[in-house]
């Protein structure tokens, strides 16, 4: 068994530097790599390009990096819920590339799986397709979209083991699995690092081969963005 275990978030983020491109898992604040983000804030690396479906809220998630003006460019599908983001974008400090959510997922998966590009119907005829190659297959139009290239992918799983195997919980799965193995180095933080052999080989969402470093995360806040309930 090839061990991917590192002792802490500091070791997990070795090699992280200014001007790098990162992928960050999560949808809204659900399933985000809280420990990695906190450490990126501490390291105060700047000029980052972040590929992530959302940009967090003002005081949590990627909002923390925005607050420190660490992000140069965001590649996302939806960036509401964040005043500082809006301010930086409108002032021109922050570059923003908005792309369809399914395209974002598949450009990650293409990088993971060794595909250079994909043809998707999403965005055809819209400004998202401007300057991009389009093509007809069977009477329907598609846009050519390229695989992402990233230096680090930061993902968060529910359980994992030293072999790098990961299991996600509920909708905290989202973009995390498709980002594993889609960057040069994939760093996984887990709520529970279990002994090797405890995870059922049949029920592993991401095999360890897609993960380079794994560590036991600490003190997850798991903030809820829209608490909606009904009364008993």
């Amino acid at each position, binding site marked *: 068994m090839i061990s991917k275990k590192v002792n802490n978030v500091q070791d997990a983020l070795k090699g992280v530097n200014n001007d790098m491109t990162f992928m960050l898992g999560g949808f809204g604040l*659900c399933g985000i790599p809280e420990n990695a983000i906190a450490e990126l804030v501490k390291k105060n690396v700047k000029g980052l390009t972040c590929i992530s479906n959302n940009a967090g809220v003002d005081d949590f998630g990627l909002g923390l990096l925005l607050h420190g003006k660490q992000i140069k460019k965001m590649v996302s599908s939806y960036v509401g819920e964040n005043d500082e983001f809006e301010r930086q974008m409108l002032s021109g400090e922050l570059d923003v590339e908005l792309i369809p*959510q399914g395209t974002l997922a598949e450009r990650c998966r293409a990088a993971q799986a060794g595909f250079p590009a994909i043809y998707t119907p999403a965005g*055809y005829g819209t400004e998202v397709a401007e300057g991009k190659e389009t093509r007809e297959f069977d009477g329907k139009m598609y846009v050519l979209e390229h695989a992402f290239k990233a230096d680090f992918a930061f993902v968060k799983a529910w359980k994992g083991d030293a072999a790098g195997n990961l299991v*996600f919980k509920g909708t905290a799965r989202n973009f995390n699995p*498709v980002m594993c193995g889609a960057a040069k180095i994939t760093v996984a933080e887990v709520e529970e690092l279990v002994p090797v052999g405890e995870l059922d080989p049949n029920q592993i969402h991401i095999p360890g081969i897609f993960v380079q470093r794994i560590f036991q995360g600490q003190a997850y806040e798991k903030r*809820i963005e*829209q608490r*909606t*309930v009904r009364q008993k």
Partner: protein
Amino acid sequence: MLDKIGIAKRIAQEVQDGYYVNLGIGIPTLVANYVREDIEVEFQSENGVLGMGPFPFDGEEDADIINAGKQTITTLPGASFFDSATSFSMIRGQHVDLTILGAMEVSENGDIANWKIPGKMVKGMGGAMDLVASAENIIVAMMHTNRAGASKLLKRCSLPLTGVGCVKKVVTNLAVLEVTAKGFKLLERAPGVSVEDIKKATEGELIIDGDIPEMNI
């Protein structure tokens, strides 16, 4: 004339037994409340869940179980969770039977604009562009006119498009319309709304063929 709940109720009549349905934010979300109880329907949310149930009871919400609107939800027996690539395989692969979403504008040829107003803060398209580019059955839920009274059913959309030639049906506070090769075909009038009212509120080509019945809600 319908209110938002009325629009949701009318759209709910379009949901058929055995449908997998993706609901957008706003009026579409309300549709789930009015689907007939004698049919089986499953709701998909593009962040990675199939088989969504109602909101959780107070105190039982789970930060790891949300919908695409970031709301805490529950799941029903038979539900499943999956990653974002799989979720859009369901959408792009046309496994989802019906997509209901809001719009700022719809054109007579089925173009839709619902993600961007030039000069205003752009929040992004989320999954909307994938949904409209792939779904075979798209119903738009919206008001017939904007706050200034201008028609939202146009010859050509003025706002940046979300998708082209994709909308099949529009349900507004005034009418149910089908998008055809020749324009908006008026199918039903909202209670108390005349054909003349709808004509006035529709900029795009409006096809009126025979008597137009009033909706039965």
